């Protein structure tokens, strides 16, 4: 840690982050070259919207990785919450009362319930990891298959079409010319940055991620902060799930498959360290933008989703190797 305060490694680390901006500019250049309408205001706002969904879960993932954990369950939680959001509104149809969307539950109730369910499952991850002492990777992997399986089981493997106007607004609505999701995302970024930088909670989260033993000795229980990080991750996954349902107008158990990889890649490419305790939400935005642009360009090239997954795997490995080499150089 002291090493990063010496002049040499500061120069090195700034060189690494310069590389990130350079990569982003390069990607924007490629995209602008391939699609002439790329740099219009309309398209940039559209991009901002398409980044938001991955952006939400990446914010949650940043919290988890800062606390020296890893959450593989985010994409599955997103899918589960998407199915739940649609299912709550279709309750009447399922029970056979009506043939139209049911408002047995008002929208705010549905939103809060789904967010609570997401947060609770995240909380459960945290409890299993800290109290039952199961490695974070295994317990979130268990949660990943459990939540995905549950999403399939309760929807019967079907897509649940049509959701209410409020849900649609969450995904498709506009505030002036800016998409509502993008506003929500920017708000979440600002809020989380303030929380991480200027509150005692944020400072303690950093400390307990970087050195749990030191945190414990100075009276900070690292377990509480880890549980909090996973709960926040679950919350953002649920929020992304609700917005996604509105964007697609469908509750879909297959949605966001493999997004845990994209979110991890976004956080790592942004420069948040796997070891915990180093990084920020703002850095993650850069990662989300790079990942989003790579996806966008691959789609422009007409590459199908499964080969895209292959390229994303390569990008992730490449990013981690670069990060490792950077760390080794600064040693």
């Amino acid at each position, binding site marked *: 840690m002291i090493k990063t305060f010496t002049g040499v490694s500061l120069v090195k680390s700034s060189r690494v982050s310069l590389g990130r901006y350079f990569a982003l500019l390069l990607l924007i250049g490629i995209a602008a070259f391939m699609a002439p309408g790329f740099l219009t205001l309309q398209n940039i706002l559209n991009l901002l919207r398409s980044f938001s969904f991955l952006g939400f879960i990446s914010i949650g993932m940043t919290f988890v990785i800062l606390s020296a954990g*890893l959450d593989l369950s985010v994409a599955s939680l997103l899918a589960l919450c998407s199915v739940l959001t649609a299912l709550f509104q279709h309750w009447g149809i399922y029970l056979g009362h009506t043939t139209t969307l049911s408002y047995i539950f008002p929208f705010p109730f549905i939103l809060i319930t789904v967010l609570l369910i997401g947060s609770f499952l995240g909380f459960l991850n945290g409890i*299993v990891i800290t109290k*039952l*002492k*199961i*490695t974070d*990777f*295994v*317990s979130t*992997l*268990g*949660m*990943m*298959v*459990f939540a*995905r*399986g*549950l999403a*399939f*089981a309760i929807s*019967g*493997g079907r897509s649940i079409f049509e959701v209410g106007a409020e849900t649609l607004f969450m995904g498709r609505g506009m505030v002036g010319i800016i998409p509502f999701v993008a506003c929500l995302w920017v708000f979440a970024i600002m809020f989380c940055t303030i929380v991480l930088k200027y509150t005692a909670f944020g400072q303690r989260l950093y400390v307990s991620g970087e050195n749990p033993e030191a945190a414990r000795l100075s009276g900070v229980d690292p377990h509480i902060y880890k549980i909090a990080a996973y709960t926040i991750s679950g919350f953002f996954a649920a929020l992304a799930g609700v917005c996604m349902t509105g964007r697609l107008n469908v509750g879909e158990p297959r949605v966001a498959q*493999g997004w845990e*990889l994209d979110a*991890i890649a976004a956080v*790592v490419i942004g420069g948040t360290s*796997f070891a915990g305790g180093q990084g920020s939400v703002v850095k993650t935005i850069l990662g989300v933008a790079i990942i989003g642009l790579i996806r966008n360009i691959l789609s422009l090239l007409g590459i*199908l989703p*499964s*080969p*895209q*997954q*292959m*390229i*994303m*795997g*390569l990008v*992730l*490995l490449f990013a*981690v*190797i670069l990060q*490792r*080499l950077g760390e*080794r150089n600064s040693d």
Partner: protein
Amino acid sequence: MLKYLSKFLWLGAIVGILLLIIIFGVASGGRWLNVLNLQVVTRTAAQLGIVAIGQTLVLITGRFDLSVGSIFGVCGVVFVPLVAAFGIWPGFILALLCGGAIGLLNGTLTEKLRVPSLIATLGNLWIFRGLVFYITGGFANAIPRDLRDHYLITILGGKFAGGWNNLIFWWIIITAVMILVLNRTKFGNAAFAVGTDERSALSRGVSPATVRMAAFIICGFLAAFSGIGTVADMKTGSTTLGQSMELESIAGSVIGGTSLLGGVGSIFGAGLGALLLSFIRSGLILAGAPPYWFVSFVGVVLIGAVLFNTKMREHILKRIERSAL
């Protein structure tokens, strides 16, 4: 002491299997406990079991391999065009070498480039799953008709003694060999040592990097062998081959008593774990549950097994300490 403990790691799995046999046997009224069903159940158990052996070895050295499902898939799928192009034996050897090469890649990424094994193998999971789609083009490709009766295909994926799959036979052989390797050779000792305490292993002249690379390569070979055997059995390689096997193989190892922290593990237990998962799958299907439930169930079983193992170990260690006092 940990090594002594690891001799009885699989007791929980044995109890689980006996319980399941009784429950399914009684509840299904003889439909589950007949030879035909047992042949199917042990066949899937053998496919998973061979992969779980490699996974156990990697887990013992203190690493994870999430790419086994994709190695299984890619080697099984690539076996078909290789056989069509180069003939049976060269195709078999090349496909097997692919598995070893991916294992070497995993090892290089984690040990030479110091990428956490979780991330490295997760990346490879996606890369090689994508490659499976690329090779098959999204279709199920069949082995050419005139090559299907070749003796090697029969040895790998045929049947013996009235319907039992040959893969079961291979599974037993590989299990026996690996038990011998782990318990009777220098390499086995080194694997346990590296997983238990990296530094003291290094101070005794055992290179953790070399041992772990070897474990990754063996794991790659075994996953490839199982994938090829499965394709030789079904005569076709489909895109979903080996999907979610990484999770099932880890669950199988853990049910058999292998610790995720390294240094503790049982090959025999991994076999029992694979058998148990296969029993649960067939039991759930017979009970009429939708196939999606199995996936959820594996997640729950995995966490439950890890929990059970840690509690058991704490309990036994405490008793040993008390009796020593």
